[in-house]
Structure formats: C-alpha cells, structure tokens
C-alpha cells in the first residue's frame, strides 16, 4: 500500500485482517498438531483448545503400530510416482507433436484433448468399474493410476504446448542438419529444454493425486491396497470414537508429507496450481 495514500486507520485495519486470516487459514492444522501431542489424560481433562501440558508421543506410536498407516503411505507413494511418470511420458511427446511438428490436424488434435477438461470424472466412473471387474483390475495400483493419468492429460498437454511453442525452431533445425531424427530431437533437445514445464506439470498434478479420494474409494476396497486418504478414513472410523489422540496423530501423519514438500517448494506449488486452474 502506498504510504502517502493510505492513512493510519486503513493500515491498522489491514494488519488486523491479515492476522485474522492467518489464524483462520492455519488454525485447523495447528490445532490438530497440538492435539496429537496431548496425553490421554490431557485430552480428557483439559479444554479442547488448550495447548498440550507436556509433549506426548504415545499417540504417534499407537497410530503407527495399530494401523496400516505405513502401508497406506507406501501405496500413496507408488500411485503418485507411477501416475506422474505416466503423465509425463504420455503428455510431453504428444505436446511436442502438436507444437513442433507441422501436420494438418495439429489444431484439431489439441481441441480434441481440450474436450477432456469439460468431462466430469463422475460420467466415467460406472463403466470403469465394469471394465475393472471384467479384467480383475480392482484393488490393483493400475485401477487408480490409469484414470488419473487419462484425466490429467488434457491439462498437462496444454501446459507443455504453452511452453514448447516458444522454443525456437532453429534449434531443432540445427539438430536435424546434424542428422538427428524426430525422436532424438525430442529427447535430446526439446524435452530437456522443457524441464521447467515438467516441474510445473508434476507439481500441478501431485497435490490432487496425493489427495485423490473418489477412485481410491471406489476401486481400492482391500485394506492392503488403500491409499492414505482412504486408509485415514478407515482408521478414524474405527478409532475416532475411542481414541482421539491416535486419530489426531494419524491425521498429522497423513498431511505431514504434503506440508513438508509445500514449505520447501511453496512458490512452485502455488504458481503451479494456479497456472493449471487459470489455463483450464
């Protein structure tokens, strides 16, 4: 705010509102973290908003030993890594063909992909369920990886094309004169140059993949195959009434990885998610 124009009262109101919003936006996470560090007596005896009287890690021990959290966590990692790899492997070459190879239908192909952004996942869920039943694919990693890759392609290709079209053609022509074919040009020139787009595509997709609920809830019914959000649901459903401490610890364990990644890469995460949203 320009100091000349904003008078003192405006500035005080601004600062106060900023603090109010900080509390609002971070309180739930702060509260659950504090509550997870309370001992059972502390939870029963003190007000729910009170800070823990002493730091107690027993809830975490319980959450880890009495639940499949580690297993759920591993499942989530496997699904996220494979989905991201699938998205990159499919969308980068497709974007290269659309933006850098001259062919008559390139515009139509792009529009064809963009169509996918309009399609809600709910209009595909039932046939998917049937197909997975037919091929015995339920409770496999593939059953949640495939739809997420498919539905992420339009956005990811769009993000890649937006960058690749600005790579000068001279670079490719120079490589072509040196005898490189299309595939070499893609893998040695274009893809390495699009590194930043790859990071954006990965970050944009990571948060939603890590937090994905619908596919996992529909296709992963076996406990051993559950991802973190679904596993958390099962654990809280079972423990939620009896043991709040362990429940809080489980929630913290489930959100900690994203929070850590976010605090390191906050700029990229915010910009990546916003870029994806705006461009759709």
């Amino acid at each position, binding site marked *: *705010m320009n100091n*000349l*124009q*904003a008078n003192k009262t405006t500035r005080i109101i*601004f*600062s106060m509102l*900023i603090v109010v*919003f*900080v509390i609002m*936006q971070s309180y*739930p*996470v702060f509260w*659950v973290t504090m*509550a997870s560090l309370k001992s059972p007596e502390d939870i029963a005896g003190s007000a*729910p*908003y009170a800070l823990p009287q002493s730091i107690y890690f027993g809830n975490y021990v319980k959450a880890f030993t009495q639940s499949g959290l580690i297993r759920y966590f591993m499942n989530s990692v496997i699904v996220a890594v494979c989905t991201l790899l*699938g998205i990159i492997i499919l969308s980068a*070459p*497709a974007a290269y063909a659309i933006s850098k*190879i001259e062919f008559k239908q*390139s515009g139509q*192909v792009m529009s064809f992909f963009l169509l996918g952004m*309009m*399609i*809600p*996942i*709910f*209009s*595909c*869920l*039932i*046939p998917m*369920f*049937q197909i997975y039943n037919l091929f015995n694919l339920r409770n496999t990693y593939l059953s949640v990886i495939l*739809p997420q890759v*498919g539905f992420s*392609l*339009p956005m990811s*290709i769009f993000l890649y094309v937006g960058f690749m079209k600005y790579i000068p053609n001279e670079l490719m022509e120079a490589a072509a004169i040196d005898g490189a074919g*299309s595939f070499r040009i893609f893998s040695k020139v274009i893809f390495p140059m699009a590194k930043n787009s790859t990071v954006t595509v990965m970050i944009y997709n990571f948060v939603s993949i890590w*937090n994905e*609920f*619908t596919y996992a809830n529909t296709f992963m019914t076996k406990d051993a195959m559950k991802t*973190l*959000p679904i596993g958390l649901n099962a654990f809280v459903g079972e423990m939620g009434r009896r043991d709040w401490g362990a429940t*809080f610890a489980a929630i913290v364990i489930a*959100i900690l990885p*994203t*929070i850590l990644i*976010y*605090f390191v890469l*906050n700029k990229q*995460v*915010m*910009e990546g*998610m*916003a870029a994806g*949203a*705006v461009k*759709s």
Partner: protein
Amino acid sequence: MRPRRKIEPWLFLLPALAVYIGVVLFPMAGTIGYSFLEWNGIGEKKFIGFDNYVRMFTDKTLRAAFFNNLFFMLVGTAFQMIMGLLMATLLSGIRKGSNIFRVLYFIPCIISSMAICKIFEKLLSVQPRGVISVVMELLNMKPIAFLSEFKYALTCVTLIDGYKFCGLYMVIFYAALMNVPQETVEAAYIDGCSWMQAYFKVKLPAIKNMFFIVLVILVNGCLKGFDVSYILTGGGPGNATELVATYMYKTAFSMSNFGYGSTLAVFILIESLIAVGIVKMIQKKFSD
C-alpha cells in the same frame, strides 16, 4: 518443423491418444449407453429406452440434490471469490511479509479433503466437546451439532469445501492485482484518488477478466462437488447435504442401480456443460 514421414507426429501422439480415448472418452460413451438400461451391475441388462430419463423428472431426491447443489454452487462460489479476493487484496496492500502470509493462507489447499473433513468433524463435535462447542458454551450459547442439524448441515458443507479451496483464488487474484501496471495506479493517486477509490475504480476493473476465469472454474467445480459432502455427512441428515454427484455415486455403488446411476452421471455432464456455456456467454457480453 516438417516431419520426414507423414506418420511421425502420430507416433508421438499415439500413446496419449490411446490412453485418453480408452479411459476418458470410451467410458463416457459407455455411461451414455448404460443410461438407457435397467441394470444392477451383475444381472441381465434390459433396454428401457428413455424410462430412466423420465424417472429423473419425478425423482424427489434428485430434485432435492439439485437444489442443494444450486445452493452449494451459489454460496460456495460467492464465498470463495470474496475470501480469495479479500486475502489477495490484503496481501497486495502490504510491502513486507506478503510471501510468508501467502504461504500460510494457502495451507488448506494442499491438504486432502479427507484430512480437512476429519479435522472439522472433531472441531465441530458436540459429544465429546470440540473446540466450537466449548467456545459456544463460553459465550453462553447452547452448542449445536452443526453437521447433524438439518438447518445447518448444507451451509457447513458448503463453507468447509469453500474454505479448503479459497486459497487458490487468492493466488490467482493476487497475481492479477500485482500485474496491474503501477503507473496507472499512481496516476490515479496523483489525480487525488483515495486508496479505496483507486482500488475500486482502477484496480478491480483492470482485473475484470480474471473474475470470469475464476467464475468458470468455481461454477464447474461446484457442480461436481462431492468429497466434503460424501465424507463429512454422507449426504445426510436425511438428504440435507445430498449433491447430484453424491446421489449418483450412491445410486450406482451403494444401491447397485447402474442404469439409473448412469443417467444421473449424464445429467452431471450436461449440467456442467450448460453452466459453463452460460458463464462464457455472460463473459462475452461483458467484454464487448
């Protein structure tokens, strides 16, 4: 660049096209096909023409879900837009520390709806007392079980869903506000505008287009609203928080009515296409 052989671009496109058609378009076509069937998912498929569609028009639960969804969309869109714009405006007004505040404001966006729902479930709990009911007692009010009270449940679900996503619109609006050329704003100040006047007369009109972009995202997103309602209240109490997507999901996967569930899925598809079309039409009128 010109390809050496005509087939080259298609070799690069083939894998993506195959997966896209296989997991997005093919199932969508399947849904449309199923919507004309009476089918429980395992037994025999029976073609019943438009019967499911006729049933849709007399389905009281669908009607309730549709109006709930309308409320969810209108209130959710307004709430997220106002919150996002407010946070962005506050941050664009300070010089120091806007980065760290932006990071904190964005936290709910990166947490899964599952975790958010579980946290709010405990915050709003009445038995045993959660934070909200204790605070209400301290204020001499009677604690309310917001999530199981017919009157409040839908508002709660709408606001919690909005709370989770409003940070995204803060980032979008913030970037737009910071992109308004400094000279234009300063010229307004030199002409004697107060901060408020400069904000409403210069800055907001300059980011007009961003409102429509955000509106499209929000309307589209709210019509597909599912997670918070499904996890937090399961559509209840009664069908107080039933949304079209949760109703479709339950019809198909809890009641094994795959035919009618597919018809509801087609409804969601058409509904979101129409809504986005309307917003785009309004946008065109405004930008002329």
